[in-house]
C-alpha cells in the first residue's frame, strides 16, 4: 500500500512535451492550414469558372430555343381515352402478386397526352378559379416533395395553387373519397393524396359510395432511410428489433411479458448481446422531417412488429400501436442534430446517424451504412422490399377533378418528372420509364 497515492501524486506523473515536439507539430499544423486555404481557393475558382461556362451555355440555349421552337413546349394533359395495356405494370410488380387483391386493375385510361394548344387542353374553370386551389394530402415525404415541386413548377399565370395537408396515409386516402361527386367545397377532402401503401379495395368501395369513381394510381418511387457510422469505424450490423429497443420511448419489460416500461437501455449490448458495449447514440434530422418520419414507420415499426403482441395491436388498437411503435425516446439518445454529421461521427465512434438513403450512398467514402436483419440497403433490396428501412410510395389522383384543372395536371406531371432528378426528390425512383406512363383510372 502507498498512502501517498492521492490526486497530487497522480498529477505529478504528468510531464511536459518537449519543446522540439511542440514546435514541430505547430509548424506542421500551420502548413496544413495554408494547404487547406489553397485548396479552398482552388475550389472556389473552379466553381466560379464552372458557373460562368454553365451560364453561357444556358444563355445560348435559351436564344436558340426562342428562335426555333417557341410554342412547341409539350404540355401534359389528362383526357379520357381508350385503355392502354401495361400502364400500371410497375405498380403491379411492386405488389409481387401478394397484394393483387388489394388494388384495382386499370379500367379506363387517362393518358397524359401531349397537346400543342389543342382544344382538349383543360382550363381553369370558373369553379376552380373561385376555389383557387387544389388539395394535396399525405405523409411527410409526399408533402415536402410536393411543396418543393410546387415552388419550382407552378404554371406561369396560374391562380390555382395546391394546398397541402400533412396527414397519415389512411387519413389521406379517406380524404380522397370524402367529397361527394361534383361538390368541390368543404374541409376534409383531397384531390391528390400520397400514401405509403396501396389503396385497399374497401377504400375504393368507399370512394365509389361517395361518388368518386375516377381515381388513378401514380407510382412515386420508394422512400428509404439508413443508419450509418463513420467509415473510420466500419458498418454496423443491426436487427430491426435491436433498433426498436434502442430508440423507442417504451419497450417491453423483459421480466413481465406484455408490459411496457420506459426504455432503460443505454448500450447496444443491452438490446442485443451480439453487439458491443457502446453507448446508444443516434444523430438525426428533426422529428418533423420526412427522414425521421420514415425511420419511425419503417425501421422502428419493423422492430416493434417482432413482438407478436405489439404487432397484434395494429388490428386491435391502432392508436396504441402507433404510439408504442413510432414514438422515439426523448432522453437524449436520439439527438436531433442534422448538421456536421460527418464530424460528429468521426468524433464519436459509437454514434450512428440517421440519413436519407440517397444522402448516404452519395458519400461512400464518408459513411458506412448499417445492414438491417442481414440485408444491406441498396437499389435492389429497396425495390425487392427486403430492406426493412424502405417503403413504396403512391400517389392517388381524382382524375375527374384533374380533367378540368390544368394546374392540377401540371402538378402531377411535374411530380412524376421530378422523380427522375435525385437532386430534387427525396424518393428513390429506379424505374424512370414507368414514371412517364399514361395515367390510368383504377377499376372499381
Amino acid at each position, binding site marked *: *500500500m*502507498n*498512502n501517498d*497515492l*492521492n*490526486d497530487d501524486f*497522480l*498529477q*505529478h*506523473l*504528468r*510531464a*511536459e*512535451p518537449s519543446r522540439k*515536439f*511542440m514546435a514541430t*507539430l*505547430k509548424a*506542421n*499544423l500551420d502548413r*496544413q*492550414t495554408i494547404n*487547406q486555404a489553397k485548396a479552398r481557393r482552388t475550389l472556389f475558382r473552379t466553381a466560379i469558372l464552372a458557373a460562368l461556362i454553365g451560364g453561357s451555355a444556358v444563355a445560348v440555349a435559351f436564344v436558340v430555343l426562342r428562335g426555333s421552337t417557341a410554342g412547341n413546349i409539350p404540355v401534359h394533359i389528362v383526357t379520357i381515352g381508350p385503355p392502354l395495356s401495361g400502364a400500371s405494370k410497375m405498380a403491379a410488380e411492386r405488389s409481387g402478386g401478394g397484394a393483387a387483391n388489394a388494388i384495382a386493375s386499370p379500367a379506363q385510361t387517362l393518358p397524359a397526352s401531349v397537346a400543342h394548344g389543342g382544344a382538349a387542353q383543360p382550363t381553369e374553370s370558373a369553379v376552380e378559379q373561385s376555389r383557387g386551389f387544389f388539395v394535396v394530402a399525405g405523409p411527410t415525404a409526399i408533402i415536402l416533395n410536393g411543396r418543393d415541386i410546387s415552388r419550382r413548377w407552378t404554371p406561369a399565370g396560374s391562380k390555382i395553387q395546391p394546398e397541402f395537408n400533412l396527414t397519415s396515409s389512411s387519413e389521406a386516402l379517406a380524404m380522397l373519397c370524402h367529397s361527394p361527386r361534383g361538390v368541390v367545397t368543404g374541409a376534409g377532402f383531397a384531390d391528390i393524396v400520397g400514401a405509403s401503401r396501396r389503396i385497399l379495395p374497401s377504400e375504393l368501395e368507399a370512394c365509389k359510395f361517395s361518388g368518386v369513381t375516377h381515381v388513378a394510381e401514380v407510382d412515386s418511387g420508394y422512400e428509404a432511410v439508413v443508419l450509418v457510422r463513420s467509415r*473510420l469505424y466500419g458498418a454496423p450490423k443491426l436487427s430491426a428489433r435491436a433498433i426498436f429497443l434502442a430508440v423507442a420511448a417504451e419497450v417491453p419489460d423483459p421480466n413481465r411479458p406484455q408490459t411496457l416500461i420506459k426504455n432503460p437501455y*443505454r448500450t447496444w449490448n443491452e438490446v442485443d448481446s451480439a453487439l458491443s458495449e457502446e*453507448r446508444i447514440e443516434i444523430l438525426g434530422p428533426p422529428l418533423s422531417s420526412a427522414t425521421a418520419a420514415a425511420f419511425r414507420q419503417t425501421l422502428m415499426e419493423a422492430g416493434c412488429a417482432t413482438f407478436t403482441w405489439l404487432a397484434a395491436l395494429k388490428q386491435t388498437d391502432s392508436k396504441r400501436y402507433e404510439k408504442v411503435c413510432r414514438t422515439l425516446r426523448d432522453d437524449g439518445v436520439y439527438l436531433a442534430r442534422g448538421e*456536421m454529421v460527418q*464530424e*460528429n461521427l*468521426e*468524433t*464519436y*465512434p459509437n454514434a450512428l446517424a440517421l440519413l436519407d438513403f440517397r444522402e448516404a450512398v452519395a458519400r461512400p467514402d464518408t459513411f458506412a451504412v448499417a445492414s438491417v436483419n442481414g440485408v444491406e440497403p441498396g437499389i435492389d433490396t429497396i425495390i425487392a422490399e427486403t430492406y426493412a428501412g424502405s417503403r413504396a410510395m403512391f400517389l392517388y389522383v381524382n382524375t375527374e377533378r384533374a380533367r378540368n384543372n390544368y394546374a392540377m395536371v401540371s402538378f402531377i406531371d411535374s411530380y412524376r418528372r421530378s422523380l427522375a432528378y435525385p437532386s430534387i426528390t427525396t424518393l428513390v425512383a429506379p424505374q424512370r420509364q414507368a414514371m412517364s406512363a399514361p395515367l390510368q383510372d383504377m377499376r372499381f
Partner: protein
Amino acid sequence: MTLEHAASGRLAEFMETNELNWDALYALEAPRIYNYFRFRLGSDSDVEELTARTFERAWRSRSRYRRDLAGFATWLFKIAKNIGTDHLRARHEHLPLDAALEVTTEGTPERDAEQRSNLTRLALLCAALPERERELIALKYGAVMNNRVIAELTGLSESNVGTILHRLVQTLRDQW
C-alpha cells in the same frame, strides 16, 4: 488554484473572444492531450505520434468547428479518445497484473526515471481495470479535466464520475 481550474479558466478566457485563438488553444491543449495519451498508454512511446494525429485531425475540421456544438476541449478529447482506442485495439498490448510487481519503484535517483517508473506501474495496475475506469484515470490525471467535462465526455453523471474516481484511487492505493 489547481491545475484543472487553471486550465479551464484559461480555456474560458480564450473562448470568450469572438475569434478563436487557435495558437493559444494549441499551447493550452497540446500538453493535456499529450499527457492523456501518456496515461492511457502508460509510457512515452507513441505518445507524440498520437498527439500529432489528434491535432492534425482537429485542424482539418476546425473551419467547421462550431462552439455551440460542443466545448472545444470536449470536441478535441473525443477525437483523442477515438485515436487512442484505435491505437490500443491495433496494439493489443496487455500485460498481466502480476507484471506490475516486477516494476521497480526504488533505486532510480533521477526524478524522470522515477516518474516513468511510477507511470508504468500505474499503467500496469490500470490494465486490470475496465476500459471505462482506465479512461477516467487518463482524463482526470493526465488531461487534468474536471468532473463536469469528464461527465460530458463519458456520458456518466458528474457525481458518478466523482464516486468512481474516489473508489479507483483507493483501489490503486491498496495495490501499489
